[in-house]
C-alpha cells in the first residue's frame, strides 16, 4: 500500500481497537467498535470511514457506501486514511453494480496512487465488465507488476494477489480464444496459490476446451480439494 499524503496523529485508542478487529478478520466486532467510536464522535470522519470499511468487509456494500461517501467529503489529509476512501467507495459501487461510479472512484484513487495494485486490479475488472479487453489486460498486468516489484518478504504475502491477477489474465486470454495462454496463466495462478479454487476451475475449463480431458478432471479434483481446504464447500451467493 502506498503511503498517505498527510498523517495527523491518530486518536490511538479507538482506531487501534477497530484495526485490530479488522486484522483479525472479526469484521462484526470492528463494526461495533467503529460505531461506538463514531457515536462518541459524530463529527469524526475517520470513525465514519472505519464504520464504512467494516461494513464493506462484511459485504454490506450499500450500507457501507453511505458511510464512505460521508467520509469522502472530508478535506484532503483530514485523517490518515482519507486519500484511500475512494478505493473503498469504488469496491462498494462495483459490488452494487454501479460500474461508472466505481470506475470514477478507482480512477480518482489511481490518480493519487498510481502504484496501488488493488486499484489497478479493480480497474481491470471494470474494463473486463465493459468488454474492454486490452485495457483489462493492461490493468491486470500493471497490478501483477506492482505486486512482483514488492518482492522480498512481501513476495509470500502477495502470492494470493498475484494469483488473482494471473487468473484474470487467463480470463482475458480465454475471452480472446487464446487457450494456450489461458492455460498458462491458470497454471501459474494455482502454483502461486494452490488454494485458489477459482483458478483450478478455470484451468479445468481451458483443459476441457483443448481436449485434455484427464488433466481437466484432475484440475477439477484439485478445485474440490482447495474448496475443502479453505472450508468453502461448493456454494453460491445464497446460503
Amino acid at each position, binding site marked *: 500500500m502506498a503511503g498517505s499524503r498527510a498523517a495527523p496523529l491518530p486518536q490511538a485508542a479507538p482506531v487501534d481497537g477497530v484495526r485490530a478487529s479488522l486484522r483479525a478478520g472479526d469484521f462484526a466486532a470492528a463494526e461495533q467498535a467503529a460505531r461506538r467510536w463514531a457515536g462518541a464522535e459524530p463529527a469524526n470522519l475517520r470513525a465514519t470511514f472505519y464504520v464504512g470499511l467494516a461494513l464493506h468487509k462484511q459485504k454490506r456494500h450499500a450500507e457501507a457506501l453511505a458511510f464512505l461517501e460521508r467520509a469522502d467529503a472530508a478535506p484532503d489529509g483530514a485523517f490518515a486514511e482519507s486519500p484511500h476512501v475512494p478505493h473503498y467507495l469504488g469496491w462498494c459501487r462495483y*459490488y452494487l453494480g454501479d460500474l461508472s461510479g466505481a470506475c470514477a472512484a478507482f480512477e480518482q484513487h489511481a490518480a493519487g496512487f498510481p502504484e496501488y495494485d488493488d486499484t489497478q486490479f479493480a480497474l481491470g475488472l471494470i474494463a473486463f465488465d465493459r*468488454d474492454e479487453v486490452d485495457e483489462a489486460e493492461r490493468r491486470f498486468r500493471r497490478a501483477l507488476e506492482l505486486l512482483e516489484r514488492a518482492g522480498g518478504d512481501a513476495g509470500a504475502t502477495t502470492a494470493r494477489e498475484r494469483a488473482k491477477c494471473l487468473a484474470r489474465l487467463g*480470463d482475458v486470454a480465454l475471452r480472446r480464444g487464446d487457450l494456450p495462454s489461458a492455460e498458462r496463466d491458470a497454471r501459474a495462478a494455482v502454483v502461486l496459490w494452490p488454494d485458489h479454487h477459482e483458478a483450478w476451475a478455470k484451468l479445468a475449463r481451458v483443459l476441457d476446451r483443448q481436449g485434455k480431458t484427464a488433466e481437466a478432471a484432475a484440475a477439477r479434483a484439485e478445485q474440490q480439494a482447495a474448496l475443502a481446504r479453505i472450508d468453502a464447500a461448493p456454494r453460491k451467493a445464497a446460503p
Partner: protein
Amino acid sequence: MSTVRAHAFACIAAVFALAATASRAIADAGSTPIRFEDVTAASGIDLTLTSGRMPSTAILEVKGGGIALIDFDGDGDRDLFFPNGATLESPERGPGARLYENLGGLRFRDVSAGMGVRHARWSFGAAVGDVDGDGRDDLYVCCFGPDVLLRNLGGGRFEDITARAGLGDPGWSTSAGFADLDADGDLDLFVVNYVEFDPKTPPPPAQFKGMAVLPGPNGFTARADLLYENLGDGTFRDVSEPAGIRRAIPGFGLNLAICDFDHDGRPDILVANDSEPNSLFANRTEPGGPMRFEERGLQSGIATNLDGAAQATMGIAVGDVDGNGFPDVFTTNFSSDTNTLHLNLDGRFFDDRTAQYGLGAPSRPLLGWATAFADLDHDGAEDLVVFNGHVYPQATRATMDSDYAQPPLVMRRAGARFEVVADPGPGLLGAHRDRAAVFDDLDGDGDVDIVVGALNGPVRVLRNAHDRPDDWVKVRAEAPGPAGSHGIGCTVELWGQGRCLARRWIWSGGPFQSTAATEAHFGVPAAWGDDLGVRVMWPFRREAGGPKPAVRSAMGCDVRRGQTVTVDRDGVRGAGVRGAAPSGSPGSP
C-alpha cells in the same frame, strides 16, 4: 482531489454523451422504444397467487406459483393455467388452480369451475403437451407432494389420470417439460425435483450478510430428477436409472430447458440447479433404441460461471445471442451475484460471456427469476427481460444490498451489448416480488406480451404497446401426432437477403416454473426487406451420416410481414411455397 473529481465527473458525462449518441443512432434506425402497459384491470384476471403466508418463513414459501401457456380449447391462441400454491398449515388444500380462456384482445375468462377436477395441492411449475395423441394439450403439474397429470377431455374438462399413467412421484418438484426424447413419436417427460422438505421439522435459520434468514437449499437433501418414457399406451415408465440421469449427483433442481444444444438433432436436457452445478444431459439416444444420456454439465462449461461457482440459476432464457447458430443460455441468479450468459460456442462447449454483453453489473442488486429473450421493439435483435424479487422478507438495500420488492430488469440489445432500458413503460416499472412469467403474443397483434405472477401477489397482464402490423413474422411448427404438437424441439430460422436473419428454438421448460412460447416470434425491421422465408428443422429426422435436423422450408413471397405461418414436416400449411431450400445455415454442423 477536486481535479480528480472533476475528471471523474467528465468521465461520467462522457458516458452519458456516448449513451445519447447511441440512442440517437437507434432512433435514426427507425426503432421504437420498448413500452409495456399494465392491462390487468381490463383483462378479466383478478388472481392473487398463494405461496404460504407473509412474511415467508420456510423455503417452501419463496418459490411462488407457476404459469403455463396452454391451448386447452384448440382454438389456436394460448390460454393460461395457474397451478397455484397453498400454506404450510394445509399444503394439500390451497385455493386451487385456475384456468383462464383467452378471449382475444388480452381479455380472459375464468373457466376453472368447468375443469371437472379441483387441483388444490401446493403446486409450482407445469408442463404442457399432448401425452396421448388425441390432439389436445394435457397438463403435468409439479407439486409439493404427488405430482398430477391432467388429461384434457375437450370442452374445457380435464381428468386426473396420474395413477393410471404411472406418475405421481411424491416429492417436491418445481418444473417439468415434455419432449420426444427417443424419436418414437410421443412426448416423454422430465421432472425437475428440488429438496426433501418436511414443514413439521423446519431446520434452524441460516445466515446471510450477518442476518438470520430462512434456511435452504444448502443444508437440505437434494431430490433426484426423474425421466419418464411415454410408452404410447397412456402410461409412463421411470427410466431415470437406465437412461443415465441417476448417474448425475442430485442437485437442487429449479428449472429446465429441453433443446438441441449440440445440434445433433436430438433434444438435450439442461437442468438449472440451485446452489449446485447445473446438469446438461446430452441426448445419445439412437432412434428406436433406449433412451441414453451423458451428463456433461461441468465438461461443457455450463454448470458454473466463469469463476467455477455454482449459482442459484432460477430463470432460463434461450436465444442465439452471437448468431452462430447454436442456442445460448441466459440464467438468472441470486442478489450480490450476477445473472449469467453462457454462449454456446460449438455445441460442445459453453463460455461465460456475461461481461462481454454487459449483462453482469446491472443484475448485482437484483435476485432474478423468470426471464426471456424476445425482440420487444422489433429491431431484429432479441432483447431481454428479467423479473426480480428477493426471497428474504428482511431484505433491504441497507441490510442485504438488495430490496425485497424489485423492479423488472429490461435490457435492450444495442449493437454488441445489451443496455438497461430505464423507462420500459408503466407495465414494467415498479417493484414487486415477481417469480414466474410467460412471454407470448397473447393478443395476436404480432408483439410479445407478458403475464407475470408475484409471490403472494397479483398476477399482472402486461401488453406490449409496440403495435405495428408490418414488422413481424411468427412461425408455428405443427405436425400430426403428439411429438409434432407445437413443434417442440424445432429450430426455426427466418431467411432473407440470401442469409439467415434470425433464429429461434421451440424448447420445453420455461422462463421459471412456466412454459416457453411455442410460437417463434421475429421482429422484422425494414432493412430486412420483404423477400422473407422460414426454415424449420425438426428433431430426430435422419439425413445421410447420422441423425441431423431435417430441413423443410418455406421460402418466398408467401411469408409476409405481419403474417403467422404454420409449418409442418412437409412444408407450409396455409401459405405457399416458392423456391428451393437455402443451401446452408450459419452454424449448421
